[in-house]
């Protein structure tokens, strides 16, 4: 009886874990469902070119301390 209980616990645990893991993403956003995500207002930066320009300026100014990345203390040239 102890063994049966062990199996039951095993099955219940695996089903529970599967349910939990599927709960992280209830439904995957499919490739054809990305219309709303593709909207300009959904982007982190509405103007990609301007964002790249700003990032470049920031990185150039802050290069000696690593700029936007973690590393720093180099020559500071960019």
């Amino acid at each position, binding site marked *: *009886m102890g*063994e*049966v209980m062990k*199996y*039951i616990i*095993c*099955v219940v645990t*695996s089903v529970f874990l*599967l349910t939990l893991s599927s709960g992280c993403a209830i439904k995957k956003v*499919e*490739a*054809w*469902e*990305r*219309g*709303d995500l*593709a*909207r300009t207002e959904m982007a982190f930066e509405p103007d990609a070119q301007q964002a790249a320009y700003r990032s470049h300026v920031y990185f150039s100014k802050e290069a000696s301390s690593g700029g936007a990345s973690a590393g720093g203390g180099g020559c500071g040239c960019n």
Partner: protein
Amino acid sequence: MNSIFDLKIRMHRFLKILPVLAIIWSSNAFAVGIGQPAPAFERVPLMGGEPIELKDYLGQVVYLDFWASWCGPCRQAMPLMNSMYQELSGQGFTVLAVNLDAYVDEALRFIKQHPVQYPMVRDTGGVLPELYGLTGMPTAYLIDRNGKVRYIHHGFKRSDVVRIRHAVESLLAESQYKTDH
């Protein structure tokens, strides 16, 4: 005791197939592959009118193109595929576009600004993309004269036209569909 033993065996079997079930569940096991018959469908044209069936094009080489107005590469592909259609339609080639926009107004607005000559149908609720097992946008299925998928094109960039045209021309060169098939 016998029933307990049966239960143990069943549980053991279940645990053995559990990882397989998980893989099948997570992967797209129903995607259409090369050499398989293109799943049949019937859809209403985007601009309205009589429903179009895929089997209407049996005997022709069909470039079944899934697109949406918000998809950049799809928009890039459309004028290029339109010129290929205009050039090769006399030889038995057609482009059949399937629009997947969630909002029909957006698709209509786009198509009014960038008109194409080839037929275009609309699918809602992701029925056709699920049937064909789409993994990205755009995806196109090149179907031969006998209704079999012979080439699948994922994504699109300008230089891809050469490869697509080569595939289309090689399928056009193949023998015509025979009615006794």
